[in-house]
Every structure is written in C-alpha cells, then in structure tokens.
C-alpha cells in the first residue's frame, strides 16, 4: 500500500500541530517509501533538521482528562502493556547507541548518528512526561519514572534489549570488528526499530485516533514514528552498503536474528490487545510484513530454520519493541 506524493510531502514537512491530524498508517508507509530510495546519511540529517520537534511544546491537558474519564481499566492495561515497552525501549536505544557512533568509519554516518542520539533522548523524555502528566506516576527523576513503569514490562523484553546492551558493551571493546558491528546494526536498526517497534507502534496510535482520545500522546508518538523512519532508513542503508562490500556479513545478520527469534516464541504473561482493537493474529501479520519488507530492502533472505522461527513468534513477545 504505497502512499501518494501529496501525502508523502505532507508527512515530510508537517509540524507538530499538523502531525496531530496525520494518519499513523501513512507515517508507517512513509518509512518504507524512504528505504527504497536509499537516502544518504546527509539527506537524512537534513530531514532531521526540518523534522526535529520540541517535546516541551506538547500539551497533555486533554490527555489527562481523557485518561481519567474516557478510558476503561481494561483499555488502560492493554495500552500500558504496549506503551511501557516503548518507554523502556526508547531508554535502551538512547543509552546503547553511542558505540555505533564510535565504530562507524564514515564522517557522514557519524553526523547522522548524533541526530539519532538526540531523537532517542527526546523520545525518552516524551514517555517520561506521558507517565508523569497523564498516567499520574510520581518519581524524582528519569530513572525513578522508568522504575515506576517497569511493572508493565514482561520477561521477554530482556531477550532483545538485554542482547542489545551486551552487544553495545562488546562493540565498545572491539570497534573495528565488522562482524560484531553488523550484529549490532541488525539488532538495533532492523530488529528493534524496524520490526518490533513498527509492528506495535500503530496499535496505541490507531486506538487514540479511532476513539479520539489522548491528542498529546498521538502527536508526540506520531512524530516519534516519523523520526524512526529516518533511523530505520539509515540503519538498513548502512547494512545494505556493508553487505555489498562483504557478502559474508550475511551470516552475522542471520546469527543475530537467530538469537532474538529464539527468545520470541514464548509469552511469560499473556498480553491482551483486544481492548485496544487488535488481536494477537493481527500483530503477528503486521510483524511478518515488517520483517519481510526490511529484509528485502537490505537484500537478505532467511534460511528455512529462521523462516520457521519467525512464524513461531508470539505477539506478546513483540509488545514493547
């Protein structure tokens, strides 16, 4: 489902106020439009300069009223099971990105990554404000708020995000190791940003749009999704470029996927998406679609064992990308 040029340009240039009216499904399509055009890192940096938004401009006044009066306990539970994954997911990708900046050997890539670092920090602040001002949690600082919302995170979260933290740590030690670098890129940009995040992002956003609630959250998270489009376009294009130079790196893409997929076939606690209008089957279909599109873009196919593992993924294990 491609979007037309008019829509694409509207998304491209929208400010925060306009993003409030833009359909999340179009923003997700916009991610893929960009990938097939292989923008350079400086093109993406230029986009960042135009698309950067101010998290302090968001107004959560109406969100707070909606949360207290229009959203049922079941809806809140389903909503928080997903939103909290993003609260912590944004923190993890913010805290673990800098080794990539150090390991990168292109000046242009390094420049782009400084913008991504700033994006991820802003996304973390966005969720901090949402939990503070709308959900009503109290904490003295950023870490305290993360600790407060952690009760909504399930075990399976550590599979992908713990792996990323450990990869980041190893990469810091071996900045010249191209194989390790490819594993990091696969886990960070392809899997976490390109597949996990984009598979569940639209669930809470479509809920807000169809119920006409939480305008501050919708605006900020829609803007976040547009930021993620640059990150995913950047990451997949670096992977594509590296693979052209050294096709043997495909083994590292497969190994990382083997690791994350092997811990994504089980749910420690059931997550019910139904109250916000989705079934586990819907989520799985979106997941398969996102995975296949990213792999095609990078130019990689899956061997049969990974194909089978991908089909076995549980929707609950994706909540929180």
């Amino acid at each position, binding site marked *: 489902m491609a979007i037309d040029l008019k829509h694409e340009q509207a998304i491209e240039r929208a400010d925060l106020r306009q993003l409030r009216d833009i359909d999340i499904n179009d923003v997700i399509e916009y991610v893929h439009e960009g990938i097939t055009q292989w923008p350079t890192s400086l093109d993406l940096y230029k986009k960042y300069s135009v698309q950067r938004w101010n998290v302090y401009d968001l107004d959560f006044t109406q969100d707070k009223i909606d949360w207290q009066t229009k959203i049922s306990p079941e809806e809140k539970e389903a909503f928080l099971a997903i939103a909290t994954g993003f609260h912590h997911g944004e923190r*993890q990708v913010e805290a673990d990105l800098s080794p990539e900046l150090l390991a990168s050997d292109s000046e242009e890539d390094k420049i782009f990554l400084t913008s991504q670092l700033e994006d991820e920090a802003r996304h973390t602040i966005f969720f901090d404000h949402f939990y503070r001002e709308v959900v009503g949690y109290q904490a003295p600082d950023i870490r305290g708020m993360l600790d407060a919302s952690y009760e909504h995170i399930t075990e399976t979260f550590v599979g992908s995000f*713990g792996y990323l933290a450990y990869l980041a*740590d190893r990469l810091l030690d071996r900045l010249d190791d191209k194989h390790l670098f490819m594993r990091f890129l696969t886990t960070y940009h392809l899997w976490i940003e390109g597949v996990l995040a984009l598979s569940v992002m639209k669930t809470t956003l479509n809920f807000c749009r169809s119920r006409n609630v939480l305008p501050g959250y919708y605006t900020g998270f829609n803007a976040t999704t547009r930021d993620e489009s640059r990150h995913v376009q950047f990451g997949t294009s670096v992977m594509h470029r590296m693979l052209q130079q050294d096709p043997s790196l495909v083994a590292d893409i497969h190994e990382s996927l083997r690791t994350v997929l092997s811990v994504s076939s*089980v749910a420690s*606690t059931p997550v019910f998406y139904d109250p916000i209008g989705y079934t586990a089957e819907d989520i799985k279909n979106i997941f398969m679609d996102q995975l296949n599109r990213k792999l095609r873009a990078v130019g990689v196919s899956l061997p049969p064992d990974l194909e089978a593992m991908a089909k076995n993924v549980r929707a609950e294990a994706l909540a929180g990308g």
Partner: protein
Amino acid sequence: MAELFSDEWLQEFVTNANAGAPESLKKAKTLDYWEIVDKMGQSFSAPMAMVLKADEAHGLMEPKYALLNFEQGKVTEAHLCSREEASAAPFILQTDVTGWKRCKEGSMDVTQAVMYRNFLLTKGDIDAFFRIIYFFVEWLRAGIQQTEMSFPSKAAA
C-alpha cells in the same frame, strides 16, 4: 545472615537458585514459559565465574570471585576462587553490589539489572547466553528471592 559473596552465602544461594522459582512465582507466569526455561537450562553445561566488582562506596576495595559448575542447568559445585581461576572460565558474569541489593529489595528486576549492565557477561558467547537468557534470569531470581543476605557496607569495612 551471610554476606554477599561469602562462602556461606554462595552455598545457600546456589541451593536456592537450583531449587527454582517458588510456587507463588510460578503461578504468575505461563506454563509454556516455564517449559522453555527448563529446556534452556538443560542445554547449559559449563563453568561460569561470577565476579563482584570492587565498590568503594560500599567499602568493597577488591573484587570477589566465585566459580560455579553448571551441569544441565544445575550448579553441581561452587566455590569462592582467585582472579586467575575465574579468568579461565569460559563464561564470566560480572555483577555489582547495587544490582544485587536492588534486586533483593525488589526495587529493580533481574531483567532490568541485565539491561542496565549491573549483571553483565564480560566473557563468553553472548548469542549462546541470550538464547537461554530466561533460564539465567529465573535462576538468579530464584536464588535472590529465597536467600537472606547482607551487603558490604562502608560502616562495616
């Protein structure tokens, strides 16, 4: 109450971790999950060193080392050891006082301690480790929850 990384603590901890999650905790998660945890555990047989990082703020001037021998997900032997002995193990899990303390108090979950690197695998294949990560998380959690422990502190040092 035995202090973290003392001989007595290590034996108690290992016994409790081997015993697995208490019933109350088991009920809170799906059967499928526990089945996978068991299967992951059974696939792991290797020595693993655990290191407690030096932490001046807690009065711990030198790191401490323990060596644990895993056979199919159960520790069959464990002892405190030297730095050299720990370094030779194929897997090294580095830990810090803050991680143990916060997990014991319940102000941080074991999964969080992994993501924040309070518990960090500094040696060994991280792909192999993460393919059985739920086993390690539950093994550590069972040990932490069921073992009374005290922590090094500046006052005691």
